[in-house]
């Protein structure tokens, strides 16, 4: 009984040469197209030279680095309700509350730390926040540190963490261009 219907391979396929030249032809097309781009001072690859270039085509919905939203006096909008810390599945948010000087506001965070090396960027904290105090920017680059303690971002850093985007705009790779 025959279960596998293998096609009989003819001589042209067994000698491999036709397939080999087909494959080499495809790579050769790529080679010369990219080489021509290099020779005309364009970038011939689809990759991004990371430290010099960053992606401008990051989705606006991308969940990247956290920022704390400020009030007009520079204080965080956070009321230290700890809803984000409670919902956080990675347990990376540490909040300590204190009494606010402003009589209209009851509490404010004395400590607000996010350990971004533990963070899984699920965005639950942003959804849980009742006062829209924590947001996530699309950018994720420069989320690095030489040791794990530098990856713990405190209130100061989260408040003053303005994203910078490289001026060299890199367009997405279009192979037909």
């Amino acid at each position, binding site marked *: 009984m025959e279960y596998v219907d293998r096609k009989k391979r003819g001589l042209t396929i067994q000698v*491999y040469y036709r397939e080999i030249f087909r494959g*080499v032809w*495809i*790579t*050769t097309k*790529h080679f010369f197209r990219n080489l021509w781009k*290099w020779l005309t001072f364009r970038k011939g*690859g*689809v*990759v991004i030279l990371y430290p010099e270039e960053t992606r401008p085509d990051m989705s606006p919905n991308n969940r990247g680095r956290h920022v704390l939203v400020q009030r007009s006096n520079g204080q965080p909008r956070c009321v230290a309700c700890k809803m984000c810390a409670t919902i956080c599945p990675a347990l990376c948010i540490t909040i300590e509350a204190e009494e606010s000087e402003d009589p209209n506001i009851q509490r404010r965070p004395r400590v607000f730390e996010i350990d971004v090396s533990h963070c899984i960027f699920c965005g639950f904290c942003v959804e849980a926040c009742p006062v829209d105090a924590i947001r996530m920017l699309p950018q994720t680059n420069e989320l690095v540190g030489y040791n794990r303690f530098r990856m713990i971002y405190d209130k100061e850093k989260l408040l003053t963490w303005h994203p910078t985007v490289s001026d060299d705009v890199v367009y997405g790779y279009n192979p037909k261009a």
Partner: protein
Amino acid sequence: MEANFLGINVVKFWTYFILAGGIFAFMFLMGAVMSWSERKQSAVLQDRIGANRASIPLPFGKKLAMWGFINNLADAIKCLIKEDFKPGVYDKLMYNLAIFFAFVPAVLAVAVVPFAGVLKPAEFFNVSYLKWIPYLPEYFAKNLPNFSFRLQVADLNVGLLFIFAVGGVSVFGAILAGWSSNNKFSMMGALRSASQMISYEVSMGLSLVGIIFIFQTVNIWDLVQAQSELAWGWLPKWGIFVQPLAFFIFLAAAVAENKRVPFDLPEAESEIISGYFTEYSAFKMLLFMFAEFIEIVFVAIMIATFFFGGYTVPYLLADGFYFPGGSYVHLSHATVVILQVLSFQVKVFFFAWFLQQMRWSLPRFRYDQLMQLGWRILLPLAIVNLIITIIIVALGGL
């Protein structure tokens, strides 16, 4: 011509000294270029950027990266200062000798390959655009007016056999390296490469026998000269035109001899540990890699010489172009020689490029497929090709 020292003709000595040095330098330079293009060409054909980070700092914040050339330099320095790790128990003599067996044959076998036609120095330097060279034009015109030599290090009558004899030695490199490192994986890698190289040497040799029959010579100089002749007054008698099937057999067998993709089972860099040179580290490993790159160049040289007319340019004879229509363009001796050298280089570059292109395009054969291709397809094809060639030659064709 009379200058003699200890019975050695001084001019001849220096001529061949420079020739041999030139060929040597060419092979090593091409080896370096190959190890660069292995990285960069693969990057370009895979839509990547490739090596470009290693650089030499220059003033004004500039960096000299040279499109990844500096990476090779960094590699060489890295391999020189790394620990040369050796196995605990090993055959020291064979372990060290194996590198040379892998390295020397490719460089040695190029000695019999001509890379341009006859050079007459007196006439060569007598061209308007070479008059600026100090001393040499007057020297050759005055002292050696009739001196001429072939741009070929050794004009052996058995050149083709020499190439095969010397090329066959490179199997020992693999076997000795695998056996002497006292490692089971190396040993198996050595066995794989030995059986592969010996299998494919058969069809490689047989594919060239047809060429020997047609041109009636094994002298490579005569072989190249014969290929410069024209068939039917317009087609150069290149090996590819008189022996098209043999070219494809030779190409496959030569790549297999070279242990490159798609026949790189002996090494299989990342999948099986490096094969026969597993136990080599630092600069010795680098030498094995470099030997492989030089062998690519050597395969390219062989293809160019046997199948693409070596240094000859179509319709170019010693004093100019003789086109089939009857038109004639006169060229000076220097121009002809330079054209021939360039033609050889272009052919070698093209085939080296092509072999790299194959290496980055194709998947690897399974070992049984490899052996089937060698023994059951290429070898019978080579024999059939040989029989047809013999019949045609016997009937007086070509």
